[in-house]
């Protein structure tokens, strides 16, 4: 009986001590409480463009991106044209993040004196941890207004003939800190084309990648395969746009130095009017500069 009494007393008083000390160290207590959280993947690409085409990245809410892009003439024009640098096509744009998941942009390019606008939405974001999402998915829709004077002002010309539209689904995955890949199914529609042989609709599948070389420098490549009926049948032969480039990031700037066979910097131009051929040396040197301004804190 005595032993039983002692036992009960010890047992109960012992449980009091256990309640508090629990033998668990503080750090693991915190770790356990924190649980597993999920992390969104950041910086799949460094800029909102891989090179010519859009990447899944958007400007954050309240950020204004002022972009200046140039494509020079063809390298194979030789020393007389300073390897193309005597001519330049430009594209200027202002792009703004309405929310972290939606951005809009407006721009003006030399090619067909085009004014363009786009809206870009994030549909899915790659994440790991508690919520695992293997891919990022972004949708972009653009409209392009040809600003050239009518080639034949006497004929009846309609404004709608100036318009072109592009829709693209951007599917990307950051495989590692060093390597990201994007697939870009694209659909371009032009209301009006030069001749009957030219298609109003062009479907394309793009692929773009980024390989990070150092913390601030990466190498990018981008290719669009155009599904065309028969390239030779078109009034002007067009080629699949291929671009190679280097991203250099410094603070609020991203510089992209580019070699490409396309002189156009917007979807209507590089999907519909890439007339250069890499194998013939129709290569344009170019660059994109992006400067970010934080408008809203």
């Amino acid at each position, binding site marked *: 009986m005595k032993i039983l009494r002692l036992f*009960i007393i010890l047992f*109960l008083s012992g449980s*009091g*001590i256990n*309640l508090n000390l629990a033998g668990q160290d*503080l750090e693991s207590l915190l770790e356990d*409480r924190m649980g597993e959280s999920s992390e969104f993947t950041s910086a799949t690409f460094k800029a909102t463009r891989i090179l010519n085409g859009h990447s899944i990245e958007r400007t954050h809410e309240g950020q204004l991106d002022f972009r200046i892009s140039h494509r020079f003439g063809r390298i194979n024009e030789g020393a007389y044209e300073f390897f193309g640098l005597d001519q330049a096509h430009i594209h200027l744009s202002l792009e703004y993040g309405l929310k972290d998941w939606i951005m809009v942009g407006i721009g003006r390019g030399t090619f067909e004196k085009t004014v363009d606008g786009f809206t870009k939405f994030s549909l899915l974001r790659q994440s790991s941890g508690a919520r695992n999402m293997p891919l990022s998915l972004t949708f972009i829709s653009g409209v392009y207004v040809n600003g050239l004077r009518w080639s034949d002002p006497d004929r009846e010309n309609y404004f709608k003939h100036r318009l072109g539209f592009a829709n693209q689904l951007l599917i990307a995955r950051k495989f590692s800190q060093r390597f990201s890949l994007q697939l870009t199914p694209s659909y371009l529609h032009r209301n009006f084309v030069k001749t009957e042989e030219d298609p109003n609709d062009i479907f394309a599948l793009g692929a773009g990648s980024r390989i990070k070389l150092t*913390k601030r420098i990466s190498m990018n490549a981008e290719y669009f395969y155009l599904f065309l009926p028969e390239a030779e049948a078109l009034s002007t032969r067009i080629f699949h746009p291929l671009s190679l480039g280097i991203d250099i990031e410094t*603070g609020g700037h991203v510089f992209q130095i580019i070699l490409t066979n396309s002189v156009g910097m917007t979807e209507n131009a590089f999907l519909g009017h890439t007339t250069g051929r890499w194998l013939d040396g129709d290569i344009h040197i170019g660059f994109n500069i992006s400067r970010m301004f*934080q408008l809203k804190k």
Partner: protein
Amino acid sequence: MRKRNIVVGLLLSLAAMVMNGQGKYLTESGQISFFSHTLIEDIRAENQEVSSVIDASTGEVAVILKMTDFQFPKKLMQEHFNENYVESEKFPKATFSGRIRNNDQVDYSTEGTYKVQVEGELTIHGISNEVEAEGTIEVSVKGISARTKFMLNPEEFGIKIPKVVRRNIAEKLEITVEMNYQAI
């Protein structure tokens, strides 16, 4: 007879609880911010989701936070912070594990403000350093709150600052800690 045994046992267990304590205090919404001042720019970031626990009986303190929870006014800066400086994907968490050196001078059951010295091991970017700081612990009806400020050199944690931005980022960052703990 047995009933009395149980009562004695319960009393003893209660006494045991009271003796060691002063139990533990926890927060999961502590604030830690850092501030870098240079002639060119001031940079500030704040993390409001810091977890910490103090064991009042031993003076042991632990702090843990996620690097990606640091909020910068400029989102691009936040991205650079995580990707280029602290490499949050590789080293997602920062931890502190230490103790209050003069814990016996803190009376967790009496309202008041107590000066404390804290020392321990701070781990950021996968690198651990011994640090110490002075701060205060305030005991009130609402719980206890702890505050401290100290300077930290990011290079000591293997965080490299490239030359181009050397003039934009201070050599020593001012770290401000503010925690409001609840008893658990």
